[in-house]
């Protein structure tokens, strides 16, 4: 059975989804906003990376650094100029704002970076490792490593450091955290910037498989949202688990089910799954108090 090869490929796409999903969950836990613009903000800074790379001929690592800077500034700007001022808006209002942001970034990208689709090369162009029956390119290995290392690093930061404690306290109860002297505004600002960088990384990792257009992150956005639904919105690790599961399921459905309809079948399966476990795999019951 050729199981190893699709499994390895799933780990690669799973890493992309996991990074994007981590951004969504960070924002959700700290600002209670469903971050629908995670994909388009990733698209924007990812396009900035491709633009710098193609125009100036800078090496990829430098372009990615530039992209990270763009992502951080973008995250700061969005939180500082918009989200922070929405304290009095309803939950739906905040969601709609992130939907509006999708359109803003979608319109801005072609104005700033041109309308022509761009290409972003792989970080490691050639070479692969042979693992018995399966082959794994160095680039795929790098992507898998980046996904796992970044996710693991984030968990260590969340669990072991003071910053992580502040984030977890804000996530648990924002007003109590503020009363305890945690600068929740700074924490939220940081969460938006981190989400931006995670989205940029996801974009740079997925870009070599496609062309850099304003809509190239759509699948990542949808999959990342579903990863959060599948994993549950109550923990940080749930969505990461969900992301890898979705990638594996998607690859195997495409391989053994239907190559055209694989993702669509998967979406329906997740909807059905919601009937059975409405709070996700590792979700706790969510109580709304009066």
């Amino acid at each position, binding site marked *: 059975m050729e199981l190893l090869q699709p499994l390895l490929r799933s780990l690669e796409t799973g890493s992309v989804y996991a990074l994007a999903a981590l951004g969504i969950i960070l924002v959700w836990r700290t600002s209670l906003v469903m971050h629908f613009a995670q994909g388009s903000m990733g698209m924007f800074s990812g396009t900035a990376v491709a633009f710098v790379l193609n125009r100036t001929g800078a090496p990829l690592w430098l372009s990615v650094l530039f992209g990270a800077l763009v992502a951080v500034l973008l995250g700061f700007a969005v939180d500082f100029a918009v989200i922070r001022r929405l304290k009095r*808006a*309803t939950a739906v209002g905040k969601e709609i704002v992130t*939907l509006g942001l999708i359109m803003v970034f979608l319109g801005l990208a072609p104005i700033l970076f041109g309308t022509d689709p761009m290409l972003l090369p792989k970080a490691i162009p050639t070479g692969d490792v042979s693992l018995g029956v399966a082959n794994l390119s160095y680039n795929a290995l790098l992507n898998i490593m980046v996904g796992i290392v970044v996710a693991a690093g984030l968990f260590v930061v969340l669990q072991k450091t003071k910053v992580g404690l502040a984030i977890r306290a804000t996530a648990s109860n924002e007003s109590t955290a503020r009363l305890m002297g945690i600068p929740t505004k700074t924490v939220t600002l940081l969460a938006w910037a981190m989400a931006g960088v995670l989205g940029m990384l996801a974009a740079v990792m997925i870009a070599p498989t496609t062309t850099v257009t304003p809509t190239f992150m759509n699948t990542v956005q949808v999959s990342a949202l579903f990863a959060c639904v599948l994993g549950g919105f109550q923990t940080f690790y749930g969505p990461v688990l969900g992301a890898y599961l979705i990638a594996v399921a998607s690859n195997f459905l495409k391989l053994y089910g239907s190559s055209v*309809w694989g993702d669509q079948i998967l979406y329906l399966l997740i909807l059905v799954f919601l009937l059975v476990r409405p709070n996700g795999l590792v979700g706790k019951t969510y109580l709304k108090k009066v």
Partner: protein
Amino acid sequence: MTSTWSAAARRALKNSHVQFLILGAALLLLPVLSANGIIKTSTLSTLGFVLIYAIVAMGLNLLLGYSGLISLGTAGFMGLGAYIAAYVQDNLRLGFWVALLAALVIPTIIGILVGVVSLRVRSIYLAIATLCISEILLKTFEQAEWFTRGTAGKQSTFPVIFGIHTDRRFMFSVIVIALVLIMMLTHNIVHGHLGRALHAMRSSEVAAQAMGVNVLKYKLFAFAMATLYAGLGGALYLFFLRSSYPSSWNLFLSLNVIAMVVVGGLRSIFGTLAGAFVIFAVPELVLKELPVVGDIPGLPYIFSGILIVVVIMFFPQGLKGLADRVRHALTPRPPSVTKDAAVVQEATR
């Protein structure tokens, strides 16, 4: 005598249904003006689409305004309505009315199924579930060639209604009639038994539940109405444009419909119409004609996006709120009355 007549007329003008009819009559003048060459045919087409989107946005306004739920599947359901209308009319040759009925019923049933699954958990799940239904429908539109002819696009013809072979101008009148009927229906829903339950749900879901309102049922109802209106809008779109392409039914149409509702003002029927005009017609009729700015790609997106953000941040009531404020400033009232009115307003809110 004249004073009682004018009083009666003034009272009639305050009746919403009369207002809708007057608006409809005024809109019916547009095809006549177009036939005489006073307004351009392209302008008439743009306005026709404004009215279609207004119908769709009114459905979303019921959902968003009363139950606080977002649907990202509006474009998908609208597209489904359009393709079903085309398939029933042109492939099955069952005529306009059957096509219209099918375009209303099938999206609504799918919508109810999606609602049943996603509404039980948390309201935000509906947005995610409809986003994925939208992706599934879009894929279907691209792949199911027997039904949609894929990316080549489905071509259709103007329908035959009551034995009359219609044209673009006639279809415009049909859209106007549909719009007036939808406005009346929406008004009646909001001001009837259902509306009271929806209002109760909006101020506090838990309290409404305690009062015996079945929250899930009314959320489902609001979402079903939103898909019904979307299906109707899709069918009208097809009969007006006579073609449908998968690329028309992407996420950004859904976002634009949300923008129409937000910009127009939540829970306002006339506001939604104004919102549809601002979001669809202003980029089409005004921005494109501007000298330098008009050539910028993606300008309509930025326009809608920034409007959404700015309206939510600074004018949560949208255009309706602005109109209210202007009206308030223009009508001088003794201070005590305004205070009472404010109290009443506060109490009824």
